[in-house]
């Protein structure tokens, strides 16, 4: 390098780029801990539990159907509370349903969550009280549609931002969230359902953990420079913890057999893994917004490439 100007701080090991006193170009997401990642977890738990409830009912596992219906309703309700608490003006939460706006994943998601919350509550209420079983079954059946959407729309929610690590991860994030949701729901069902009925829950948990681990690995490896926040710092530590917990918990779910202790350990590990995943995703987003490198370098490369053409 033969020349430089004083406005630029030299940064060792970093891609060469210029910035305004190293300040971030974009604003960091203002969503809070624990609200936002906990909401992602609960939405996933609710959505995947709904799917399990439908199949448990169809394959004649009443106890599993009951626990998963309750988990689906509790997840959606808890998530809704967190979502409202996250607002700057919580008393205006109904403004979310003021319009249906396809260009806004949060608008679409609010309607999905409203449907999932209502249907899963009806399904759970009917299962617990025994009142109106046919209506309860119909509501549960409808959550086979709203459930998976509740679990995956949140990936679109975070990807549809200018946050480089989130935006660039729009292919991997839905699968990560889907896997994490399955692991979460499988874990809770394993913990709350008698063993004889919990076989499919263990399978769901193991499949989910495998998908979660695979998608997280893709996310860290495939994005190049903007994938760095997933590998480094707080987010990197959370996501490696998530991987260890999910992979371990998933294996244990398959091997737990008759052991109650192993089942509990597996369920707890999977839950902790899913939570670490969600917290790690928020941290990675924050880190990628805070460093102008992730905004400037890819855009500069794009411009330089198109100038050459």
């Amino acid at each position, binding site marked *: 390098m033969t020349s430089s100007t004083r406005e630029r701080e030299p940064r060792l090991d970093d891609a060469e780029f210029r910035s305004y*006193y190293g300040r971030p170009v974009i604003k960091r997401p203002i969503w809070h801990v624990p609200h936002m990642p906990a909401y992602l977890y609960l939405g996933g738990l609710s959505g995947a539990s709904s799917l399990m409830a439908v*199949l448990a009912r169809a394959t004649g596992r009443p106890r599993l159907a009951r626990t998963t219906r309750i988990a689906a309703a509790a997840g959606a309700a808890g998530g809704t509370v967190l979502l409202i608490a996250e607002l700057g003006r919580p008393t205006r939460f109904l*403004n979310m349903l003021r319009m249906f706006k396809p*260009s806004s994943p949060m608008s679409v998601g609010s309607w999905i969550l409203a449907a999932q919350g209502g249907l899963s509550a009806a399904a759970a209420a009917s299962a617990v009280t025994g009142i109106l079983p046919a209506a309860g079954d119909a509501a549960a059946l409808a959550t086979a549609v709203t459930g998976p959407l509740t679990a995956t729309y949140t990936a679109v929610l975070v990807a549809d931002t200018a946050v480089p690590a989130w935006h660039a991860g729009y292919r991997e994030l839905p699968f990560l969230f889907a896997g994490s949701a399955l692991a979460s729901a499988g874990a809770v069902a394993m913990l709350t359902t008698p063993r004889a009925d919990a076989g499919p829950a263990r399978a769901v948990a193991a499949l989910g953990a495998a998908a979660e681990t695979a998608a997280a690995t893709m996310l860290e490896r495939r994005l190049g420079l903007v994938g760095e926040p997933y590998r480094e710092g707080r987010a990197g530590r959370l996501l490696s913890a998530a991987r260890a917990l999910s992979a371990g918990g998933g294996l244990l779910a398959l091997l737990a057999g008759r052991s109650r202790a192993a089942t509990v350990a597996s369920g707890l590990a999977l839950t902790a893994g899913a939570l670490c995943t969600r917290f790690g995703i928020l941290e990675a987003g924050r880190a990628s917004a805070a460093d102008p490198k992730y905004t400037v370098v890819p855009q500069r490369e794009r411009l330089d490439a198109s100038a050459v053409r």
Partner: protein
Amino acid sequence: MAERMGFFTDTSICIGCKACEVACKEWNQLPDDGFVFEATSYDNTGALGASTWRHVAFIEQQPVWTADGTTGDGDGDGGEKPFQIGPDGRWLMSSDVCKHCTNAGCLDVCPTGALFRTEFGTVVVQSDICNGCGYCVPACPFGVIARREDDGRAWKCTMCYDRLRGGLEPACAKACPTDSIQFGPLDELRERAAARVAELHALGRTEARLYGESPDDGVGGMGAFFLLLDEPEVYGLPPDPVVPTRNLPAMWRWAGAAALTMAGAVALSFLGSSDRLLGRGGPR
């Protein structure tokens, strides 16, 4: 709709007086955003925010003499460009503002409809509707809009919507003593800007370039665009901003695929569970 109005900020004649910052604060009655001493330059405002709708960036560039006696252009690649930093260095000043994007990320993602497009083609938050969800904040590729934490709602430049409706120009443009901030119909401003660049190039200032004037850029053109004397990132602007929603259809397709995969995985787990195949229980 009335004509689309905009700002053309010609940074080559900005003197860094910050009259625009003050006029904006005063007209819009924006609260104090903290008394900060940045200690990096004459800029102690730092960045645009919920209570800072105009921000004057201040960049001091000193030449570094190279072995062959020439001065560097600051891009670090060793190739000299006519940046005219000169032996005494140069100051770059630029008044930044919301770009009032043609394809605005903030507006696209706002779930409540609080953000809307006005009859002047500008993007404005309706503070009586915003519920402070905060989604617009990371959706802006320029880091413009922000939430005022004690108030809970999102705020940004309105291009003085109230003044425009009253037939006045925005407070910042009115206050700018050098006409660095020019307000007018966007088409007219674009013509004026092209002429100004040609003029500067004729004077040998080939580093002059427009930022945000092209309707073909990633945000469909900015309602507030700039004449810059260095690369956008030097001023804290993203070099090639793209509205996040441009990829939204693809995002939903991937999410849909993940949702279907999820359903498939659960179905597999239930149907593949051996106790079921062995016929224990059976569907009721």
